[in-house]
């Protein structure tokens, strides 16, 4: 029985993990659509958990773990222990995005209890004990990493889709969006209003047109969604 048990175990563990395509949230996560959507209060309104590795001045990397707040042209914003931290994009050495809670702790505890229970197997414990350890450790480790995806550094701007503020940081933490330089000029005190579809964006001649990989939320249609202007 233990040998037969190993095959589904290996197959199940091999099926873990997400393809890199999940960085585009419009593609979904490869799951099955729900016929009965959950209550509206269950829809998450916070950012995903991230781990941002920041290059230090003294070659010592620093790691920030917390909720992803926003990504703009200059910074990755993270909430760490109720404190807002920002990391300049050039200083980002790596980002890991947690798509869902791993529950690795549960599996670790389950494995421990299971391994201890093999004492009730008598002589068979010589086989079932190590099997429990093998299955438990493997499951715990794979659970710990299967829920994370490593974000390529040249795709950092796509992270905005997973942020609490996908359009950029709001004023309480300091606006990251300055008044647009495009006409018509508005008085500084006025609140910015969304640009009408018919109004083209103008920019200085020296500034290149936004490409498909600019920071901020965008769609595949050029100009459909622009990153926050700075």
């Amino acid at each position, binding site marked *: *029985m233990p040998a037969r048990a190993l095959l*589904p175990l290996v197959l*199940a*563990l091999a*099926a*873990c993990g997400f393809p890199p395509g999940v960085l585009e*949230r*419009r593609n*979904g*996560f*490869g*799951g*099955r*659509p*729900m016929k009965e*959507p959950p209550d*509206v*209060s269950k*829809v998450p*309104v*916070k950012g995903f958990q991230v781990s941002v590795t920041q290059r230090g001045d003294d070659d010592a990397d620093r790691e920030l773990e917390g909720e992803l707040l926003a990504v703009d042209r200059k910074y990755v914003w993270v909430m760490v222990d109720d404190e807002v931290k920002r990391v300049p994009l050039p200083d980002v050495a790596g980002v890991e995005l947690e798509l*869902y809670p791993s*529950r690795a702790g549960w*599996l670790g505890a389950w*494995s421990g209890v*299971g391994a201890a*229970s093999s004492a*009730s*197997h*008598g*002589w*068979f414990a010589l086989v*079932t004990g190590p*099997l*429990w350890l093998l299955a*438990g450790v*493997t499951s*715990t480790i*794979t*659970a710990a990493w*299967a*829920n994370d995806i490593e974000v390529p550094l040249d795709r950092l701007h796509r992270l905005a*889709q997973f942020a609490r*503020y*996908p*359009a950029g*940081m*709001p*004023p*309480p933490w300091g606006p990251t969006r300055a008044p647009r330089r495009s006409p018509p000029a508005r008085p500084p005190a006025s*609140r910015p*209003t*969304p*640009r009408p*579809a018919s109004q083209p964006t103008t920019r200085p001649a020296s500034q290149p047109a936004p490409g498909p990989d600019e920071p901020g*939320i965008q*769609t595949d*249609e050029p100009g*459909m*969604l622009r990153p926050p202007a700075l």
Partner: protein
Amino acid sequence: MNRSLLLLLPLACLLASGCKSTMYQASFHQLPYRARLDRGAPFLKAHTLDGEVFVLADWKLDERRQRVVGNGLRYDVKRQVRARGALVVPYDRIVLLETNRPERVSTHNQFAAMILMTTASLGVTAFCLAYGVCF
């Protein structure tokens, strides 16, 4: 032994339900491009300039009065609930619209392996207790 294994089935089903997570497909559109919104999505989030977000079900765009209407919740910048029920969001407050479709995703296949292991282990325990040949 077969009976004890049958008794484990509800437990296995309960644990197996923990192998799936609800995740949300999302599409983002700025207001001028609202015509491309996924109108069939069950949820619409209206992100405002000041960092608030309205999460709406049964939502629709009221073009005549330039606003979004629906039933749901309004969260402040710290994501505390500030209002619930029938809500109206004027277009001039919105900086980004996000549609969400929930989906069930198999996320914890390791649980299936552990359930299998637990079932086998309990089977061995039951065998040992029944026949007393293990010690």
